[in-house]
């Protein structure tokens, strides 16, 4: 699915890998993020890897003007336009409980902004009847766990939105893929105490996203997180509540 890919949160490690995969297939790219200077350093790299064109755009999750500008840019871009959403933050849970601003920011960047951005681009997708939407959720959204239920709640919201959006856009031949990464090998997890499981590799996820985007649906990555989450989902509440994870 070439044409233009808008990468939101282009500074993220997962987004970077996906942008490279899209570049390899000759896509046009719009890199949107908070720090366009830093994104500009990716520009030449992506061109050399095969991108047809690369444009950087300033995008802060809750800034309405940025959103408006992005929609205008999308209307001008080489069709069909597709969207890859990687914006997210994962602050300490305790810190968020104590700090309403921090908690709101987290919900806004993980969930609200994704919803508002897709809503704003909806007419374009309805009209072009092509392209795809990829949203990065998380396994944390499957069941709220003691360790990260606020973050998990934002991702669960995103998941519900993605389901409805997919249903809405199915009449317009625009697939929506909700990705649920397990623990990935990225700066978000580097040096942290991670579960004793192989970390997912961003390049691997990027490849799968590229192949799966046209089909939509839900994707667990690495695959073994699907049975793990299935088991966690079905743990009896009494046991689940006692677990410290």
């Amino acid at each position, binding site marked *: 699915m070439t044409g233009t890919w808008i990468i939101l949160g282009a500074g993220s490690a997962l987004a970077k890998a996906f942008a490279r995969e899209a570049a390899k297939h000759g896509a046009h790219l719009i890199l949107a993020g908070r720090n366009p200077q*830093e994104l500009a350093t990716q520009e*030449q*790299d992506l061109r*050399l*890897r095969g991108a047809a064109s690369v444009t950087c755009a300033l995008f802060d999750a809750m800034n309405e003007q940025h959103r408006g500008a992005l929609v205008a840019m999308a209307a001008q871009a080489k069709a069909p336009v597709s969207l890859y959403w990687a914006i997210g933050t994962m602050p300490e849970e305790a810190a968020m409980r104590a700090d309403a601003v921090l908690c709101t920011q987290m919900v806004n960047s993980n969930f609200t902004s994704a919803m508002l951005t897709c809503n704003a681009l909806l007419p374009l997708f309805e009209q072009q009847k092509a392209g795809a939407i990829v949203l990065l959720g998380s396994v944390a959204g499957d069941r709220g766990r003691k360790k990260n239920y606020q973050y998990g709640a934002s991702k669960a919201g995103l998941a519900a939105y993605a389901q409805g959006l997919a249903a809405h856009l199915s009449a317009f031949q625009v697939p929506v893929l909700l990705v649920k990464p397990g623990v990935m090998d990225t*700066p978000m997890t*580097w*040096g942290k105490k991670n579960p004793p499981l192989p970390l997912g590799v961003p390049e691997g996820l990027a490849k799968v996203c590229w192949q799966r985007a046209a089909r939509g649906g839900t994707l667990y990555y690495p695959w073994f997180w699907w049975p793990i989450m299935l088991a966690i989902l079905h743990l009896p509440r009494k046991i689940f509540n006692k677990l410290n994870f």
Partner: protein
Amino acid sequence: MILWGQTTLTGWGRTSRAATSAARPHTLSAVQEAVQNSPAILAHGLGRSYGDAALPTEAARAILTDQLDQLVSFDPQSGVLVAQAGVSFKTILETFLPRGWLIPVAPGTSFVTLGGAIANNVHGKNHPVAGALSRHILWVEVLTADGRVCRFSRTENAPAFFATLGGIGLTGIIVQAALQLTPAAGSCVAVTQHRCKNLEDLLAAFTSKPERDDYAVAWLDALSGGAALGRSIFERAHIAPGNAPVRLDGGPVFPLDLPSFALNPLSIRLFNKVRYAWVGRANPTLSIVPHAQFFYPLDRIQHWNRMYGKRGFHQFQCVIPDAAAPQALPKLLEMISQSARASFLAVLKRLGQEDENYLSYAMPGYVLALDFPNSPGTPEFLSTLNKFTRDVGGRVYLAKDSTLTADDLAAMYPRLPDFKRVLAELDPQEKFTSRMAQRLGLRRTA
């Protein structure tokens, strides 16, 4: 702010491990911050050196360079590629081979970083014609101990340039480099294979002069001795037209550590027999294969080093100078075959003229490389092989080594004093240090 994570690094042979604190920076400024805040530090690429070249000392930290992986520029007229040091050969090949450009020097795996390949000044199966990687590096930018990023080339601080090439990471952190790519006829390789009954046969094959002989290598059954000593499969190759897809994705992952008894002399003997019988032809046969099949057969199984179990393995790789080879090679092979220390992969290839860098491994002669499962007595046996190599005027390759001594190094590498002098100027406080550097007396041990 830089994140330091606790991690355990090992060489590819997994015989020694280093629990260390490591940073994994994305940007040059983060690399600078990490170096500035650490009294002792070492760059670690993809960890494909077998021994302790890429392992920090107890007191040192590590910079994992794999995220410094941007392509910076490419000039389609001249073929000069500028890339950050963490870019892998895999990326370079996947990106540029389909466009008709090749890395002129390729080690046996594509999972190496540009920085790591420079720091070991790697060579390929075409050393006599292409030299080592250094010949194709136009300049390097190195973050040195004083915190500055300096450009070194043949005209800009040449001593520092030749110390950085093959300098096992001790001159500083290479942040980017300019590499001259070479035009490629296509992404296929024309390989001619035939069997050699013994060493005499094999050396004759190496010295015969066909029309094109860019790449040459022999796979040797290191267990057979006596009349079958040197029994091998000889391959000669050149780049051929054709558009095979350039796919270097690691294939399946070797899933677990095999128990240490899995690779025993019997199973390896069997493997070698089968492999030899497979190429059932005494007469040369030509085949056209995709690029990776000839250059990176081992990359098809990721983490194949787990096959040797938890105790790991050593690789011994030496070069035996031409003058000594006729007597020394059979002796060396006989020692190895008699030791029955079971070596899977024995490779023989040729090197040409010495390269420009101070710690150049090359000299006109034969390279022998083989794996030894790490069992009791293996390090001692390797020391015997080191001594033998030293006595016949050869050299042991640092990218594979874990047993050389400071004396061995001085005897094998005649320009070592020059290297030490430049190091003392660039890094008097010994900020950049490794286990290998300590073992070889290049760094103090405290």
